Each structure stands twice: as C-alpha cells, then as structure tokens.
C-alpha cells in the first residue's frame, strides 16, 4: 500500500509528497516487527533506488514469507532526486543536517519532523546513501563510536564488505540516523557506490543482506543467503589521501584492491601544460575502500581512503 508521509503545497499546482510503500505479512499474528528502508535524502545519490525496487519485487513475489511490516521510503527528498540536486531545492540545505526537525519550523524542518514521527517505533531502520558524485565507495556501514556496541551485531548481518566505526562529530547529531538512534530506533547508515549512478551488483548484495536482517528480526521466514563477513575498521587504521594540486586525477589502482605503502594511487595531470602536477602514494599497506571517481580536483580534494592492514 502506498501512503503519503507528509505533503506540502508548492506554489503552482503541485505538492511535495514524501511517500512510502508499506508491505505487511497477511498471516502475521500478534505484535509485528517493523523495518524501515529509507533513501534519497541527498538527491544525487541513487544507489538506494534499485535496492528499494528489488526489495519490493522480492517481497511481492514471496508474500507468504513476510511476517512483519516493511516500510520502503525511496525518496526523502523527492524534489532533489528528480532535479539532480543534492540538497533540498529552493532552500539549498543539506537535508541530513536538519533532523530531528521541528513541527513549527521552516518547511524543511517540518518535513524532517514528520519523517521522524513516521519512522518512530520501528524495530530497525536502514538509511541508504551513495557517497556523492566525487567518490566511489565499497558497500559499507558507518557507525559512530557511541552506537557501535548496539549496531555492530546488525551491521554484521547486512552482507556488506566493510564496517567503519568513526568518531562522533557534533555536527552529525543533526543526521537522520543519529536522531533515530536517539529515540530508540536502531539505524544503520549504508554508503555504497557513487552519486548519480546505480551499481546493480551492490544493489543486489545489499538487498540480500536486508533479507538476512529481516530473517534475524522475524520479519521474513523465506530463504536467505549466508551474509559475508565484513572487515571492521577497528581491524586497521584509516589513511587519507588528499590532492595538493589542481588538475585531473587519473587513478593507477582499482577500487577495493590491496596496496602497499608508497605505491602510486594515481597522478594529478595538467592538461594545459602537459605535465604531471603530483603523484599520490598510499600512506600504508591496506585496501583502497574509497577512490576518487570525478576527475577534476582542487587542492584538498579527497582522492582515496586506505584501510591499513593485511586483507585477503
């Protein structure tokens, strides 16, 4: 069933509508568990669109195995998704910096408050992101140190490659995931792929993982795969590589490949003068889990993140 979570009139003959599909097991009895799958907070991140489709398709095909409630929200920022705008059009605001919102606040904060209200009470939420147009990411879950103990068991079932446990920054307290975790809805943030593109392989991998988690929660009793064991960031240090010159970045490594300290990650080239501006090297032995996708770089542009350690 398609439901409207929140609706706000736009100036000329249109409404901003945030919609979800609610799927409920017909034969489930008693108090049903509920999982929410949300994506499209940043309008240029599209990887979650295919995951939503794939979940809906599989659930419809095997309704008999659904024992709880699955709420699928493909676009928390529908105007942004439609207009290739990362923030909320008209406000130029990052939607993931205004949660938990405010019922009496400006329109974006009102919308954010209605989203929180709608998800409140769920047993689990998965918030799917797709990096941005600049960086390619392997399928991973990002968890703050504060919530690691509670969320790591869920993350390990999600069939992703990597779990990054990071330090807590005050500014991240305004994200959807933080706000939901604070009101008792365990929320995992997935980052995978790259902005403005859909990587089918990653989408299927995550959809498989979501079914594993649903089985764990008692929402699904059909067959599932055995989830892959993710690498946890605490297994090694994360090394950052940033550009120090402007130009075009040409990678010399593949994404999610092992690399040795001092090996070349790539070069920054100057197309006007036909020269190499900078060679970029790995700061440690490890795996390249983030790699620059968009070629144009400025001084400071993130080129790669390398997870230090021996991985095979």
């Amino acid at each position, binding site marked *: 069933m398609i439901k409207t979570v929140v609706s706000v009139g736009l100036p000329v003959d249109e409404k901003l509508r945030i919609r979800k599909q609610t799927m409920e097991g017909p034969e489930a009895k008693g108090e049903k568990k509920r999982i929410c799958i949300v994506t499209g907070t940043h309008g240029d991140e599209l990887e979650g669109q295919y995951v939503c489709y794939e979940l809906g398709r599989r659930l419809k095909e095997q309704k008999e195995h659904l024992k709880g409630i699955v709420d699928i929200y493909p676009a928390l920022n529908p105007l942004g998704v439609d207009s290739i705008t990362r923030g909320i059009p*008209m406000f130029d605001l990052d939607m993931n910096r205004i949660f938990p919102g405010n019922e009496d606040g400006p*329109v974006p904060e009102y919308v954010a408050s209605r989203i929180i209200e709608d998800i409140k009470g769920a047993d689990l939420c998965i918030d799917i992101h797709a990096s941005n147009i600049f960086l390619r990411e392997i399928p991973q879950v990002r968890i703050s140190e504060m919530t690691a103990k509670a969320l790591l068991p869920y993350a390990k079932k999600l069939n992703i490659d990597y779990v990054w446990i990071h330090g807590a920054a005050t500014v991240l*307290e*305004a994200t959807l995931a933080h706000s939901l975790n604070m009101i008792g809805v365990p929320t995992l943030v997935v980052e995978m792929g790259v902005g403005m593109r859909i990587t089918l392989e990653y989408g299927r991998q995550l959809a498989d993982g979501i079914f594993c988690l649903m089985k764990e929660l008692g929402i699904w009793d059909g067959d599932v795969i055995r989830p892959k064991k993710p690498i946890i960031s605490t297994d090694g240090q994360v090394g950052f590589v*940033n550009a120090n010159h402007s130009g075009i970045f040409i990678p010399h490594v593949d994404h999610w490949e092992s690399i040795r300290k001092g090996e070349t990650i790539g070069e920054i080239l100057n197309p006007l003068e036909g020269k190499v501006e900078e060679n970029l090297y790995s700061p440690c032995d490890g795996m390249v889990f983030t790699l620059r996708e968009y070629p144009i770089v400025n001084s400071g542009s993130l080129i790669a993140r390398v997870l230090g350690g021996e991985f095979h």
Partner: protein
Amino acid sequence: MRKEVIYQLGNTYRDDLRIYGYHFGKGEKSACIVGSMRGNEVQQMYVCSQLVKALKELEGHGGFVPGSEILVIPSVNHFSMNIGKRFWAVDNTDINRMFPGYDQGETTQRIAAGVFDVVQHYSCGIQFTSFYMPGDFIPHVRMMETGFQKPSLANLFGLPYVVIRKPRPVDTTTLNYNWQIWDTNAFSVYTNATDRIDQVSAGQAVASVLRFLTRMGFLRYTSHSGYIATVVREDDLKNVKSDAAGIYRRLVEPGQEVKKGEVLAEVLDPHEGDVVSRILSPERGIIFFAYAQPLVMERAIIFKIIKRLHQ
C-alpha cells in the same frame, strides 16, 4: 593600510583564489571583520568595501588609537560569486560550515583553516552574513549562546536589536561559533539584503561597526549614538506561516508595528488571481523578518514577529 593575500588556492582552469585582508593600525589584534563567505552575499561584501574605504580615510587622518590593529576581509568566496553560485564552486559545500577547518582536509576545510588561522586571536570578530530563508530583516546583531557571549558588547553597535540564538549542532561549524569558543567576542551583523545592494542598510551597517570600534576604544570617530538595543531571544520570536501556496503579496514591512488580526500578506491563486488566503497577525508586535519572494509554499515561515513590542 596594508593589503595582503591571507590565503591562496591554486587552480588549473581559473585564476587562483586569492583572499585579501586589509590591515589598519598597528598593535594588538583588536577587531576582525569578515564579509561574504557565500557567493550570493554581495551586500555583505559591499558593506566591507565601504568599511575599508572609511577606515582608510580615518587612518589618513589619525583616527586610529595607537596600539590597535583592525583586519577587514571583504570576501572569502568570490570564486562562487563570479559564477553565480552560493556555495563552493566545485562541490557545493558551505565554507561557513567548515570552521575551524583542517589544513590537510577537503578544499573548503583547507580554506576555512587558512582563514581561521588569520582571524583568530582578535579580541572582537564581526561577520556580515545571511540567512538561508529568502527575506528581509530589521538590521540587527546576532550572537550565539555558547556561554561565552556578551550581549552588553553587542549593544555597542547601536543597532535597534540584538538577537540571542541557542546554537544547534549545525551551528558548531560556523565562524561565529568557533570565534567564541576560541576566546573572540563574536557578532554576526545582518542587514536587510543579501544578493542585492541596499544602500540605506549598508550605510547603517558601516556606521554601526565604526560606532562599535570607537566605543571599544580602537578608533577616534564621532558618530550618532544609535539605539539602546532591545535584546530578543530567537526562540521568543513568533513565527507566522503561510496556510496556502501560490503567488505571494506582502502587505507589511520589517520594522512595522502590527496589531493582532491585521492582514500581513495575501496568497493568490497563481492562474486565476483570486485571493485564496489572507495571512493575519496572531500577535501585536513588530515585524522582525518578512519573506520576500513572489511565490510561496504552504507552511513557509513568512514573518517573525517580536511579540508585544511597540515602536
């Protein structure tokens, strides 16, 4: 006056980004004034340019008290201004959400770190900035309630209002917040324009900064005393929302006193022209903020009213 490049960023396709600082006087780091941090903050840059002009003249006439140094940075993000963008030209990040910055980090973190390195350690920091909602304000001084704020100093600007805002997580990466945390008395000054030049409020802003610098003992300058400010907490402002979407017709101006039940604005059907809603004032008071776009969404905040206040 001494002009210097305080931060420079190389670029392959454009000229380098050069951020300029204008130093006046010699001595202790007394006051730092920062203008446009976003590409559409033309008024903010204009105010600073007028301030540089005024300070240059004052310096030439012995208007500086010995022992004080004042720095003015008229614009930080003219890279975006030159191509009509509000945020950073490449990745759309907001430099005013990157403080205190990180010199080994992403581009806008590096710019913020470069600027912060220069602007910190001043006794006072004044930033001309803008609000993310399009509209007009009564000119005012805004401070964040970090525990270090001093509203009594904000009164020295002589502007009619001082607004105290409780910081939210998203505010912790602004210049104003980080100035305060690092022991600078920080003030944000809002005029009533952003992407256009309003001569009257720009003149008022320049006068208010010169008044402040004089009262702090950095300048010798004779000016009108200005106002004894009314201090308002942002949470106490009454929001008025539009209950309909369509063409927006504003009927009152910022600074105007309104009665309860007075018609503040009308919303018109965008195709047929009929008035579909009249927005009434829920309170007696003074209009502090007024939305200023020809179209309006449902539920948009179109006014903020200082409740139960007379002119």
